[in-house]
């Protein structure tokens, strides 16, 4: 077994074909996916709409069967049942028995997951508190808003204190405060040593949360690795804000750094390579300008994402 205890999710060459409609024509949704998630990591699975993220997650949850390839979670084949005591899952746009109340549905999932009766009430109350639903706990889910259902979805995924959690677009439907709360919750899981596998296309969340990412485009993984490795090296840039810059110098900067000037009155903002910042500041100060601020700007995941999508389009 290649699993050394650190590999929580291991996917090798997973292919998924479907037959849409009644015809015999096959459509390939996943083209040989391989990825690894290590213990204690927050792993971001990102990609444009229709890339196959949800399909991959359903394979990992045993809801659909891979056409070929192998997927294991915590060393167990995803078709097994018993190991899911250690697994939590939030589906995309989750839907629950709406004739139950928030508290009842969490008790239902807790019993299914084998939470002991003695610990049940306390655990349910804790989770309701974590997702800020204590006040609505005794209302039927029929009366819940979309964001409240999303919160219940997150609570049921964590009710049995699983080792690894799979979240399909956890921020969907949440207001800004809710998103912050869920981000904090995910970080809390990481501190507790849990592993989180997260599907999303909100890149700022990925940058804020994820240790490693895989970018999926049209059923193929285009990038996989640590976020730092992407965001590192020569491409690191800074934003410099200057004021009182003489016009001639301004246009010289524009030529020299290839950066566009964004003036607001007398303020000028430039984006330059990090290694050129010192030269720029020296020249600006000598010409009598004032430095308002220098902010590190990391090349964003967004640009990597765009590049991955573009290169996928070219190669197809």
């Amino acid at each position, binding site marked *: 077994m290649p699993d050394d205890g650190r590999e929580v999710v291991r996917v090798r060459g997973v292919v998924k074909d479907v037959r849409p409609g009644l015809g015999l024509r096959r459509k390939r949704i996943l083209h040989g996916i391989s990825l690894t998630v290590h213990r204690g990591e927050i792993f971001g699975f990102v990609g444009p709409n229709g890339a196959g993220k949800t399909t991959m997650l359903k394979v990992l949850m045993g809801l*659909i069967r891979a056409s070929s390839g192998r997927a294991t979670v915590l060393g167990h084949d995803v078709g097994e049942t018993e190991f899911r005591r250690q697994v*939590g*899952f939030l*589906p995309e746009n*989750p*839907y629950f028995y709406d*004739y139950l109340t928030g508290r009842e549905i969490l008790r*239902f999932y807790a019993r299914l997951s084998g939470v002991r009766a003695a610990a049940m009430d306390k655990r349910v109350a804790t989770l309701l508190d974590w997702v800020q639903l204590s006040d609505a706990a005794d209302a039927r889910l029929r009366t819940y808003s979309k964001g409240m259902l999303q919160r219940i979805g997150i609570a049921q995924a964590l009710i049995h204190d699983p080792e690894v959690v*799979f979240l399909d677009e956890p921020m969907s439907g949440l207001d800004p405060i809710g998103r912050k709360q869920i981000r904090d919750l995910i970080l809390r899981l990481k501190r507790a040593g849990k592993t989180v596998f997260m599907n999303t296309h909100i890149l700022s969340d990925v940058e804020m949360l994820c240790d490693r990412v895989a970018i999926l485009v049209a059923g193929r993984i285009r990038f996989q690795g640590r976020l730092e490795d992407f965001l590192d090296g020569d491409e690191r840039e800074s934003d410099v804000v200057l004021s009182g810059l003489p016009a001639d110098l301004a246009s010289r900067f524009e030529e020299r750094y290839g950066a566009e000037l964004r003036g607001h009155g007398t303020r000028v903002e430039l984006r330059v390579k990090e290694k050129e910042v010192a030269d720029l500041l020296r020249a600006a100060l000598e010409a009598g300008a004032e430095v308002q601020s220098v902010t590190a700007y990391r090349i964003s995941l967004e640009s990597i994402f765009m590049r991955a999508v573009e290169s996928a389009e070219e190669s197809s």
Partner: protein
Amino acid sequence: MISPLRIWVIASNTVREAIRSKLLYALLFFAILLIGTGVLVSALSYVERERIFQDVGLAAIRLFSVGIAIFLGVGLIHGEVDRRTIYTILSKPISRSEFLVGKYVGLVLTTWLQLAIMSVAFAAVSFATGAPIDLAHAAAIGLTGIEVMVIVAVATLFSAFTTPLLSSLFSVGIYMLGHLTRDLRQLGAQGDVEGFGTFTVVIHRVLPNLESFNLSLHAAHGLPISAAEIWLPVAYGIGYAAALLCVAAYVFERRDFR
């Protein structure tokens, strides 16, 4: 390992769903109304008033039990897949077979609960009108409970892989053929149409023989019922339902949920 505990979690929740749905109360109301109608019908007759009332009453109980079983059974599994409530459930340590059996047990308990309520109504009306009630009535109602076990299993099987519309067509078809298989077979044996005889034999072997659960004649006429006339159908019904559930579980385990 099959866990009775997890099956019970699903089953009890299925009963709870039924108890919280208003529709079922409406159905029950009509069933009891129909049982009561037996009294009116019998009032029009000068002879055998009690017998007519009890005929109508028992028929109403059988009809509503089977009707509710098919009505709820055809959406039993399909609804969970369609509304995607099954995603989070199957992400917990419960197998698809356990889920399926749990849903089945839950619906059987629900229909039994309804059967019990209708029986109480039947007994109450019988008592009020002075119609005699004996063990034959209890046996007839008990075997209706077993018949419902088979019908729910049929509906569950179809519900595990097809839509409620098709499931109800198939289930109603099997229910009707199931009551006719004995007659059909006799017809097939007498007739000399090539193939029809074989067809009726196959039908008779494969489809459930639902007439064996029908004791209403005995009940209405106070005919004696032998122990074998109860235990054989009970064993047959349980065995038949279990076999259907095995097929349903086999199909269900292999499905993709997309």
